[in-house]
């Protein structure tokens, strides 16, 4: 979350340098600041400039890492898995088909409890489309990765730094998700922290004694009989329950150190007078922010931590809301069912706790622009008592 006012007034963040960066370059900058040691890569639009920039940083000696051009995304993630098993701090990036192709390995990485941070610049599947869409990452919700969705280049950079603390604390991999082009290829003001500041926050990768090193023989991943398999899933489940609190804690600690606070969700203008709350992710949030001065009756619930879904934070954020308020989910994803991912998650989070009339709006799939006018159309449409599921600006 960028504080736009701060930027305009040029409030300086201490021990930072202002730069103009596209989302993808902010991601590469963050990987460097976090001292990722192993970067397997494969090109796919629109993430390609992330790995291009990282290959340049490594080639010029600006960054000390091993960069490898792999033969596919499946191999990228399999290589990431091998290096993480041996205790390296790993970073890579992918998009759309690449993420779909790596699906098998995503499961393996999460089940091996390997820490790593990976960026996904979202795009949909066939027919070919390379533009903004969250279907690819949302289709990986059940692979066991933590997923955090970002709104600005600043948030991309900051979230990757927080991501390494989270992943190395819990040994659960983290996926940081960017919107294609609206974020990946759009230049913004970014405060880039000095290396020493990041080093104070994120220590070098600590080994835990379970890594492959060659000197202490061990086996990882052998066949597990039915009597024992559940013990691994149970231990993982116990840790998955800690994710929401940890994301909030790390976000707060990050704020104390860097001057920018982050939480699992962000509540904007949610109070007892709020009539309608848009549930948003990523760059669409910025667009909705832009119409709030015209619509004091509208609020926003920005979901940053998408998986595991932050139920406690959502309930807390909606606490001031009157029971008559409407919840409107904006879905830049299509998962082959009636509802989009946000509606599914929101219903699950609220079940048995609060009841609100809830709407689901499919918008902006395959990169279609969601403009302020589109948001106005959403408000009008919801007020005209429509069906629960709406396709907006659609003929």
């Amino acid at each position, binding site marked *: 979350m960028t504080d736009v006012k701060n930027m305009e007034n040029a409030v300086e963040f201490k021990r930072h340098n202002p730069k103009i960066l596209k989302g993808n370059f902010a991601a590469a900058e963050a990987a460097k600041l976090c001292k990722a040691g192993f970067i397997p890569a494969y090109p796919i639009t629109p993430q390609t400039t992330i790995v291009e920039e990282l290959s340049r940083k490594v080639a010029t000696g600006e960054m000390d890492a091993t960069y490898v051009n792999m033969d596919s995304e499946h191999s990228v993630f399999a290589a990431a*898995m091998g290096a993480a098993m041996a205790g*390296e701090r790993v970073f890579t990036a992918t998009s759309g088909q690449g993420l779909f192709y790596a699906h098998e390995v995503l499961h393996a990485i999460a089940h091996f409890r390997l820490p790593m941070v990976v960026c996904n610049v979202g795009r949909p599947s066939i027919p070919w489309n390379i533009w903004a869409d969250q279907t690819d990452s949302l289709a990986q919700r059940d692979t066991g990765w933590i997923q955090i969705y970002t709104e600005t280049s600043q948030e991309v950079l900051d979230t990757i730094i927080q991501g390494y603390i989270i992943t190395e604390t819990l040994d659960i991999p983290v996926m940081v998700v960017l919107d294609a082009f609206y974020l990946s290829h759009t230049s913004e003001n970014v405060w880039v922290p000095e290396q020493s500041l990041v080093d104070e926050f994120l220590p070098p990768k600590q080994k835990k004694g379970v890594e492959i090193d*060659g000197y*202490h023989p061990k086996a990882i991943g052998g066949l597990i009989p039915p009597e024992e398999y559940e013990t691994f899933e149970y231990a993982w489940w116990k840790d998955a329950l800690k994710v929401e609190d940890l994301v909030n804690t790390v976000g707060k600690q990050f704020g104390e150190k860097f001057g920018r606070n982050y939480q699992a969700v962000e509540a904007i203008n949610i109070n007892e007078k709020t009539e309608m709350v848009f549930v948003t992710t990523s760059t669409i949030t910025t667009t909705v922010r832009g119409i709030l001065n015209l619509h004091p009756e509208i609020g926003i619930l920005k979901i940053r931590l998408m998986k595991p879904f932050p139920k406690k934070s959502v309930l807390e954020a909606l606490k001031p809301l009157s029971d008559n308020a409407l919840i409107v989910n904006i879905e830049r994803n299509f998962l082959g069912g009636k509802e989009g991912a946000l509606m599914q998650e929101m219903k699950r989070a609220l079940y048995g706790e609060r009841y609100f009339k809830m709407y689901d709006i499919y918008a902006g799939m395959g990169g279609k622009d969601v403009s302020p006018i589109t948001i106005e159309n959403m408000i009008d449409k919801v007020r005209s008592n429509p069906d629960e599921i709406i396709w907006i600006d659609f003929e």
Partner: protein
Amino acid sequence: MADLVYKFLIGEEKVYPGALSCRGCGWALLVRHIASILGENTVYVVPASCYSIIAGPYGYNHVKGSTVHTVFAAAPATATGVRAALDRQGNKDANVVVLAGDGGTFDIGLQSLSGAASRGERIIYVCNNNGAYMNTGIQTSTATPYGAVTTTNPNPSYKKTWPKDLMGIVSSHNIPYAATCSLAFIQDFRRKVERAKNADGFSFLMIDGPCPPGHKTDPSQSISIARLAVETKLFPLFEVEHHRVKINYYPKKEIPVEECLKLQGRFRHLFKENATDALKTIQEQVDSNWKRLVKLEEISYQF
């Protein structure tokens, strides 16, 4: 006494007793020899294969070294990550070894094998070629020999295509070392493991893997059948340094392929009266392959 110990091929065992392989399986024997040469500072990367089981279930480790189990299609990619990490951590002496079957090598893993070979990763890739997906119950792979029956090529629909020339494919990547190995020629095999270990880059070993349940053979005949495969030129022993081919063993007598095939139940149908054409086809192909190999050796040192 010291002399006696000296004469054992394996000075110190680097595997634990009690491997889970079937009787007469090649895996346990080949890993025992490889491990004795490579030592404990070795990481074995294992995709889905019979060795996934033989390596031991959770809590056990067959080798005195490290074992990493990984996804079927990408063992060379996982090995790439392990290699890079160990190199970064200063353990450049470690050996990183892929132990894969023919399905994981010829079929589903071919792309990542090609990628690792092309990049010149310092990895030893070992393919135990037993000619089918044996771990899942004897299904056809592209390494399955012409004429063999499997559970997915049941008689009379025995396999009627020749296995792909994987040695040709791999050595075409211009790698420093590739070789075929037989458990019946153990000193040759051990020498090749040493060569692979010392190769400057990606090295590849393909071993003719005995499989009594899959080949329908008597476990006590595993080694003698492996020897016959070399003697009949069904499985020639050769090595390739970059593009240069060297044949390591010239059979002294002409022995027809039948002598090897008739000992294996998977070829039994070829010995029925109406199936003699298939035997002839196999003999012709084997002769042709051998002549081609000899020619390759001849021209290898002319440039």
